[in-house]
């Protein structure tokens, strides 16, 4: 029992040095007063300057729905769908998941590992798109450079379907 802590301690000692580069994304799903509220579908991706998808990071949708196993409404994440979502087979391991409740959700992506993988040096946007049944659709973009020169947190906010969105760059 005692010895079980030792690997953890060693890991903690080296954590500051060996921490892998990556992105932490915080997405807030806002509270919306609606007689009939459905959690939004959300897509998070990295976009190149010419608005292509470098990589899709996360997709939240309702997998339980009978119709098309929930994929029937994926097209409502309109930009993500057109730019490349339609080329992916859902569900996608490590990317797709169930819709999330109101509140802040933290997503961590590590360079060299799916779904972020290796990102070529350059300018990018982090894009978060949300679409809600009986609600609206919104896109939030945060520009960033990669690789990150220093640890930095970039912030943006939606106005209707998305609350605060932040991007923590980990060099």
């Amino acid at each position, binding site marked *: 029992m005692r010895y079980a802590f030792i690997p953890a301690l060693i890991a903690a000692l080296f954590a500051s040095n060996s921490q892998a580069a990556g992105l932490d994304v915080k997405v807030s799903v806002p509270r919306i007063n609606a007689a009939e509220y459905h959690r939004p579908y959300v897509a998070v991706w990295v976009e190149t300057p010419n608005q292509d998808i470098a990589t899709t990071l996360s997709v939240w949708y309702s997998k339980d729905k009978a119709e*098309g196993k929930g*994929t029937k409404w994926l097209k409502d994440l309109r930009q993500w*769908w*057109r730019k490349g979502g*339609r080329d992916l087979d859902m569900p996608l391991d490590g990317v797709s998941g169930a819709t999330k409740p109101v509140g802040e959700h933290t997503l961590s992506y590590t360079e060299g590992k799916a779904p972020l993988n290796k990102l070529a040096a350059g300018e990018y946007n982090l894009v978060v798109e949300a679409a809600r049944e009986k609600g609206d659709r919104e896109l939030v973009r945060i520009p960033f450079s990669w690789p990150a020169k220093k640890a930095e947190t970039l912030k943006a906010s939606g106005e209707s379907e998305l609350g605060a969105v932040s991007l923590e760059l980990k060099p």
Partner: protein
Amino acid sequence: MNTIKSTVKFSLSLMAAAAVLSSSLAQAHGYWLLPSSTVLSAPQFVTFDAAVSNDPFHFNHRPLAVDEVQVTAPDGSNQRLQNVSKGELRTTFDVNFEQKGTYRISNYREGVRASWKEDGQPKRFMGKIEEFKQRVPANAQELKVSEIANRLETFVTVGSPSPLKTNGHGLEIVSSVHPNDLVAGEPLTLQFLVDGKPTAGVEVEVIRGQTRYRNQKGEQKLKTDADGKVKIELPEAGMYWLDADFVDHKVKTKEASERSLAYVLTLEVLPQ
């Protein structure tokens, strides 16, 4: 159902519309297909309206018969029309889109329209060439014959769009952007082919639907350049109706001197 009768009825409605179109655009009744969706992320049914009217997608005049509409699946097979219902103002039908890729919903007709006098009585005919040859008497007077090649179509995609092939008959398009991949603010270049060859001088008119809610229709009237191309502006999201017309002299019947070609297309443009 009496298919022969319905085919003839179809010929009349589509060809009558075409006849008006080619004789005078100002007095034309357009015809169109209106899909309930064009971009799908899962296999499902889509329902269609089909009608003849002056105002694109506003069914306020006559239904369009759909007996010869063909739905071609991405693998080349034909998908059947279901729940066909002809009302006073529109025809509706459903199609089940099961495969991934792009479906072509199309109606292509070749034929003749003719008028003549028989014992002093005026006669008219619209239909297929073979039928015309049987119908017209050897002693027909003041015989006027012209050929027609009309295509009406739209596209629906499940998942990723798949490439579209042309078939070399009548008036067709080659699109710079896949027709199920259009967004507001991004212009579209269409190349028009006549019997498979890029053709200059094709007259193209494009109107966004919902014209009853604005004073200016804002139609674009264009003519294809030497490469057979036109550039179409798509400033706003919505359903767009495109009508292209051309007249040439490539005829199959010796009595005819002209052929009128028409191409009618419905395009959906989504917001950015």
